[in-house]
């Protein structure tokens, strides 16, 4: 029942709005008014809250409007209005969002005034459409409608000047205000409060909007009239916003862009390219990430599944005992013939182990006279350009060496962005070398120009010299330091860039050049042989014919004929003058990977994936099988009358080849005619007419070492199990870098299971066997996450509480030689005002001192080089790393000469080794609860949470429990973060033979025996093992002194992520010192015989629940 006053109320409304359709207004207004009107009395049903809300909003709006009017400085509105200037639709939504609480109000007001704007419908529709995009379109529409109503209802005010923003329009004079107030009061008295309020506020809204609308139009006019200043202000705001957005974008891009743009190795990520099961999803095609020719400058951290590597990585390669041999497949061979009189020939072998070795060939002996170690990935090809050895690698670099030196790299050329797969040199022109790689990049190098010394010395080199750099002159290029420093300048300030040969759309796998260096041919996955002029890099022709990847190319001395070997198993002879393929030889049954021709280019030796080496007469098509190897043939080189063969095996064989008179071989018979269609040869082999090799064994072999093909990091994170090419399984201790156990030819999987230990140590390193030997990678700061107690590592004389950070000690061991050399340098009397930042460390003599900053306090120890971490000096490991300048480099640790600093080594490495500073890690404390288990009569020990540091020793927990229980220490309510007394720390479980160390106080007799069982990994509960009490007693005689407690040493290292759950079981028996063998929970050897007290810990609270359910499972 509405009182009559309401009716009068909307009579006023109707009047005020100039409404044409009364009914509608009545309806709508009644709806709105009525709803708000009833708000006075308490209503039992649903709509009440809405009405209350409405009411309050109306009131708020009213007061806001009033304040708006009375206060001339409309700061709040100002911004709203100014924003409206810039973007109409945006402001509509902005203002609507800001005034969201006024929604209902607007809605109701809109309902009232919607009809009013019928006269100005075009405007209405346009304004409403402009604001239709905003989400709260109703209110914004209402605003626009209101404004439109206003404009239709009122004449436009005179144009305001610029300063109208600052001061309100003069129309809102005191007279108007007075009028409004009066009418408001009248309404209050006669028509009821709420309707009055509503009406007033609506009016005020109107006025506000009208002002602002006028303002808008006014400002628009101003802008048109005097654009400069106003526009600038608006534009400035816009610009600011845009710039902010840009900055955001840039930030994102910068974050995405990798740090070092120095042409580092483009290592991709291991992608598990599993196909989405077709029958489940509508979309079946696997995501094709066609990056095509995308130039990869360095590792892109966003796409990878590996961790985001911000810091440079340090890798150390555990070389084999005999490092005079290669330990991985040989990718390339090159023969250097010396001057006849006394010189011997040399064979250069580039291997997948990243090194090149030079072998002195004396009669039938070969000895390794030098190792060229600098590449950090496979050496893919090596050629001789005069006296310079040029090599290319999968680390994207091309390196030059003095072929007769002792192995120092003279120059590193970083031009390629992806693996460099092949090189070509001209026999008669030693100044030109071409390199080709993945991504279709081909470059032609002027060797002299590339090797010429840097014109101007840069600061770093100056520093180097001033620091007493052995006084090497700048121009000396034999010094590896120079190389490391100068390498950065190659592509930048060096000034020399090679000639690119642009044209390949896909990767290049083979190159060849003619003798004079006037013709270059290249081939790759495009299946096309491309011919270039290396002097200019221009394309000359394309030869099509092969059906698969072209893996080997040869040019004759003049450059008229070209031989190509492809993965389609065919060898094709091309005539470049005629620009066509003249012959096609179906000799092999599988891919052809290597070609070598006689000097007269009449016969060709070919080898490939089918493990066979054939000699083919190009004119008669006669072909004979020379030998069959056990591994695919990767490369061949002719020397005198024999041929050297490189395979995926690390040894190199030499076979007689009758290079100067190949006919002799054919006279032996057993040759066949090579057809010219691939399936003829394949068919021939299938039909059983396989040719018999001429030679069954080589004249001579340069042996190689066995390479590692499989590896597995064991749980204790110090041992790695490996399997090599011969099938032997060996166990390495990577903190020493040696093999500690050779198991022989056993099953790798079985051995892995045998050696399984129930321990958990954070993964502080990663390993791979890319180079045929174990490479251990250390990435900061993850590498510093593993700590162990010195006592657990059987270090004699170590104190009980000393903790060792594994990575730190490993680094110190690796860089020991470097430190020694360094100190020697420092000790020399050369004046050195050392500005270098890292020079703030230990004095020269006290190398062995280093502060170990441990998590829970200052427990420093004066341990020198711990025996676990001494690396062998006989076969020292090599370090592969990268500093702030230059790219990655590789050296044996014994070859470091002490001059390497943060430009060469990662700063975190230097910091750790010299200063003992580890990267700041979150002080992860694990908080846990100590609760009695169900069914146990044990009293509650502590109420609150206890916390423990990263690794926690169980005996401390036991001590704590004992103290609390036996010695009846009263609880002081337990502060929630009470650290367990005595700096609790837990160590890893070890086989009982390792000894049980304890530092227990003497306990009175008849104590409870406490068993601690501790699960380790988060999801799986119950991985623990404990030591039988008897055994414990046996091992440590001190135990017999009545401390009848069982010690279980378990490792519980707390992991940074929050899903790690720990639960510790404390078993408390009665006072009898019985042996309590809980068994190994994980193994399920039997139920727990005694009631246990449960102590659960969780990194995050939510895992607490999980612990309960797990516990029950026991």
């Amino acid at each position, binding site marked *: 029942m509405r009182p009559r006053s309401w009716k009068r109320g909307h009579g006023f409304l109707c009047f005020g709005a100039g409404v044409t359709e009364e009914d509608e207004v009545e309806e709508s207004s009644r709806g709105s008014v009525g709803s708000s009107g009833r708000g006075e009395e308490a209503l039992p049903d649903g709509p009440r809250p809405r009405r209350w809300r409405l009411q309050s909003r109306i009131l708020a709006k009213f007061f806001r409007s009033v304040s708006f009017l009375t206060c001339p400085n409309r700061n709040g509105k100002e911004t709203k209005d100014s924003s409206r200037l810039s973007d109409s639709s945006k402001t509509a939504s902005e203002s609507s969002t800001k005034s969201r609480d006024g929604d209902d109000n607007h809605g109701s007001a809109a309902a009232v005034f919607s009809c009013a704007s019928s006269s100005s419908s075009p405007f209405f529709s346009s304004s409403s459409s402009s604001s239709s995009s905003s989400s709260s379109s109703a209110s914004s529409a209402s605003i626009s409608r209101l404004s439109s109503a206003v404009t239709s209802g009122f004449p436009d005010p005179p144009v305001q000047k610029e300063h109208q923003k600052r001061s309100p329009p003069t129309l809102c004079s005191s007279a108007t205000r007075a009028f409004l107030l009066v009418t408001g009061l009248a309404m209050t008295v006669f028509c009821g409060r709420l309707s009055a309020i509503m009406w007033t506020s609506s009016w005020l809204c109107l006025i506000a909007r009208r002002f602002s609308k006028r303002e808008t139009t006014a400002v628009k006019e101003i802008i048109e009239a005097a654009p400069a200043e106003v526009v600038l202000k608006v534009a400035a705001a816009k610009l600011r916003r845009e710039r902010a957005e840009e900055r955001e974008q840039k930030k994102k891009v910068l974050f995405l862009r990798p740090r070092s743009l120095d042409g580092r190795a*483009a*290592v*991709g*990520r*291991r*992608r598990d*390219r*599993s*196909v989405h*099961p*077709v*029958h*489940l*999803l*509508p*979309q*079946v*095609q*696997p995501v*094709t*990430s*066609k*990056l*095509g020719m*995308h130039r*990869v400058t360095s590792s*892109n951290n966003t*796409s990878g599944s590996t961790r985001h590597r911000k810091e440079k990585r340090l890798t150390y390669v555990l070389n084999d005992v005999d490092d005079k041999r290669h330990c991985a497949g040989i990718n390339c061979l090159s023969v250097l013939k010396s001057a006849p009189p006394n010189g011997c020939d040399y064979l250069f072998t580039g291997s997948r182990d990243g090194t090149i070795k030079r072998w002195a060939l004396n009669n039938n002996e070969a000895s390794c006279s030098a190792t060229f170690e600098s590449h950090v*990935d*496979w050496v893919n090809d090596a050629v001789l350009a005069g006296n310079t050895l040029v090599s290319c690698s*999968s680390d994207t670099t091309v390196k030059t060496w003095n072929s007769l030196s002792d192995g120092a790299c003279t120059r590193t050329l970083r031009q390629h962005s*992806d693996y460099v797969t092949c090189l070509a040199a001209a026999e008669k022109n030693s100044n030109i070398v071409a390199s080709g790689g*993945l*991504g279709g990049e081909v470059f032609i190098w002027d060797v002299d120009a590339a090797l010429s010394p840097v014109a101007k010395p840069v600061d770093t080199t100056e520093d180097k010299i001033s620091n007493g750099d052995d006084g090497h002159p700048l121009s000396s290029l034999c010094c590896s330091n120079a190389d490391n420093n100068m390498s950065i300048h190659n592509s930048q300030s060096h000034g020399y860039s090679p000639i690119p040969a642009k044209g390949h759309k*896909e*990767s290049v*796998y083979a190159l060849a050049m003619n003798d004079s260096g006037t013709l270059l041919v290249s081939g790759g*996955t495009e299946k096309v042989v491309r011919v270039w002029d290396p002097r200019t890099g221009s394309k000359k022709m394309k030869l099509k014919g092969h059906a698969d*990847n072209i893996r080997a190319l040869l040019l004759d001395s003049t450059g008229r004929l070209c031989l190509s070997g492809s*993965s389609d198993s065919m060898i094709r002879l091309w005539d470049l003058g005629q620009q066509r393929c003249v012959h096609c030889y179906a000799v092999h049954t599988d*891919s052809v990977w290597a070609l070598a021709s006689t000097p007269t280019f009449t016969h060709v030796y070919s080898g490939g*994936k089918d493990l066979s080496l054939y000699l083919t007469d190009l004119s008669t098509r006669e072909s004979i099988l020379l030998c069959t190897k056990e591994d*695919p043939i990767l490369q061949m080189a002719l020397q005198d009358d024999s041929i050297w063969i490189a395979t*995926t095996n690390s040894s190199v064989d030499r076979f007689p080849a009758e290079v100067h008179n190949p006919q002799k071989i054919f006279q032996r018979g057993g040759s066949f005619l090579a057809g010219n269609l691939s399936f003829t040869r394949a068919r021939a082999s299938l039909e059983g007419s396989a040719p018999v090799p001429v030679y069954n064994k080589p004249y001579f072999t340069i042996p190689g070492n066995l390479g590692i*093909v499989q590896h597995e990091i064991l749980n204790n994170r110090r041992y790695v199990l490996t399997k090599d090419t011969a099938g032997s399984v060996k166990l390495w201790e990577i903190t020493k870098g040696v093999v500690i156990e050779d198991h022989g030819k056993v099953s790798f999987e079985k051995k892995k299971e045998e050696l399984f230990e129930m321990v958990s140590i954070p993964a502080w390193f990663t390993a*791979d*066997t*890319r180079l045929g030997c174990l490479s251990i990678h250390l990435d900061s700061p993850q590498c510093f996450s593993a700590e162990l107690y010195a006592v657990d590592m059987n270090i004699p004389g170590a104190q009980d509480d000393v903790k060792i950070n594994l990575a730190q000690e490993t680094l110190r061991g690796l860089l020991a030689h470097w430190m020694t050399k360094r100190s020697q340098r420092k000790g020399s009397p050369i004046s050195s005002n050392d500005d270098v930042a890292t020079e703030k460390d230990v004095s020269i003599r006290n190398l062995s001192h280093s502060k170990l900053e441990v998590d829970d306090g200052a427990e420093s120890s004066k341990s020198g080089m711990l025996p676990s971490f001494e690396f062998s000096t006989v076969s020292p490991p090599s370090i592969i790393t990268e500093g702030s300048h230059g790219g990655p480099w590789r050296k044996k640790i014994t070859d470091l000469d002490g001059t390497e600093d943060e430009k060469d080594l990662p700063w975190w490495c230097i910091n750790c080794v010299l200063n003992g500073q580890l990267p700041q890690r979150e002080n992860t404390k694990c908080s846990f609860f100590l609760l009695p288990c169900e069914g146990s009569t044990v009293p509650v020990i502590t109420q609150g949470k206890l916390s423990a540091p990263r690794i926690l020793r169980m005996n401390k927990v036991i001590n704590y429990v004992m103290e609390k229980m036996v010695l009846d220490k009263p609880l002081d309510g337990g502060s929630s973060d009470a650290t367990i007394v005595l700096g609790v720390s837990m160590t890893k479980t070890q086989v009982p033979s390792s000894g049980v160390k304890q530092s227990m106080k003497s306990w009175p007799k008849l104590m409870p025996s406490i068993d601690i069982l501790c699960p380790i990994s988060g999801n799986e509960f119950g991985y623990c093992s404990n030591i039988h009490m008897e055994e414990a007693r046996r091992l440590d005689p001190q135990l017999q002194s009545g401390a009848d407690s069982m010690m279980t040493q378990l490792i519980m290292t707390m992991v940074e992520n929050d899903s790690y759950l720990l639960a510790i079981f404390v078993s408390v028996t009665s006072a009898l010192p019985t042996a309590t063998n809980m068994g190994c929970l994980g193994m399920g050897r039997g139920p727990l015989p005694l009631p246990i007290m449960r102590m659960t810990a969780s990194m995050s609270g939510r895992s607490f629940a999980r612990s309960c359910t797990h516990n029950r499972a026991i």
Partner: protein
Amino acid sequence: MVMGATGSKLEKALGEQFPEGERYFGLENFGNTCYCNSVLQVLYFCIPFREQLLDYYENNKIVGDAEENLLTCLTDLFSQISSQKKKTGVISPRRFVQRVKKQNELFRSYMHQDAHEFLNFLLNELVDILERESNAANASPEASSSSSSSSSEKVANGPSNPTVNGLRKDPFVTWVHDSFQGILTNETRCLRCETVTARDETFFDLSLDIEQNSSITSCLKNFSSTETLNAEDKFFCDKCCSLQEAQKRMKIKKPPSILVIHLKRFKYIEHLGRNKKLSYRVVFPMELKLMNTVEDPDTEYSLFAVVVHIGTGPNHGHYVSLVKSHNHWLYFDDETVEMIDESTMHKYFGSSQEYSSNTEHGYILFYESLGKSS
């Protein structure tokens, strides 16, 4: 329910050629169940499937109050159709649709659904049910199991052990698999050592990407095209123990006897933030030869059904199906069943122009194997 006029029209059209024992019934649409109806029609006229379904049901009727499941509902529906007295008419698949809605909440709403999703769901459900039933049958000793020798093993293993013939985790092969399942092989070839790692996958249908003015053969070729893993995406070759470039492709190892080809007629438009229906013209042949098989292509297929989507957008539309039965093509549009001429099939290829009036596009194609050709 009786669309007398239409029914007789069809009968008249066919005249004496009306095949014996065959029933052409339309299915009632309950609002949005055209996706269901079109797929059901196709499956019904997939003779091997229908026969095997009815046979299975005959042989494996579980006594007593068996739980109603999708299989039983489907069988009921099919048997209902085939046992009709009239030759044409309309049937209301109420129970089946109810069952579907109960089983999968995706289909519970009144929104428009995707026929391909429904087909997948249906086939997978049938497979699950058959597996369960066979396990149940094998577990209980008195039930007739497939082979007497293995039954004792199974009893010993206990009912909770889902082993079949002592093999763990062996996918249970049902007659649904026999009909629809094929094997794809995913081959990756390292470009350095050229070892090929192959991995097999099973499939019930092939979803092909389509292009304007293409054909099924070219789409299939695309499907098996070589993808190069290079640059950032190198392949970790286990033989080389390092990252190398590789080439990857998918080939059909074992073609199914009923090849279902699903055309991906939708594309996500970035700037609109939603899917768009692709009305590309994709020509599908009546006879198809698979060329992207691992072995030599000698399986020939013949088109026997098409599920057509009518509509301009991916979220709305109507499904009808075209089914070949006894050498004449029928057009099933929910309740309506009409005969159409094979020459009009080209209407359903799609349109070359962006906006054309013809919005009927072939969406799912069903090919049946004709056996190996010479």
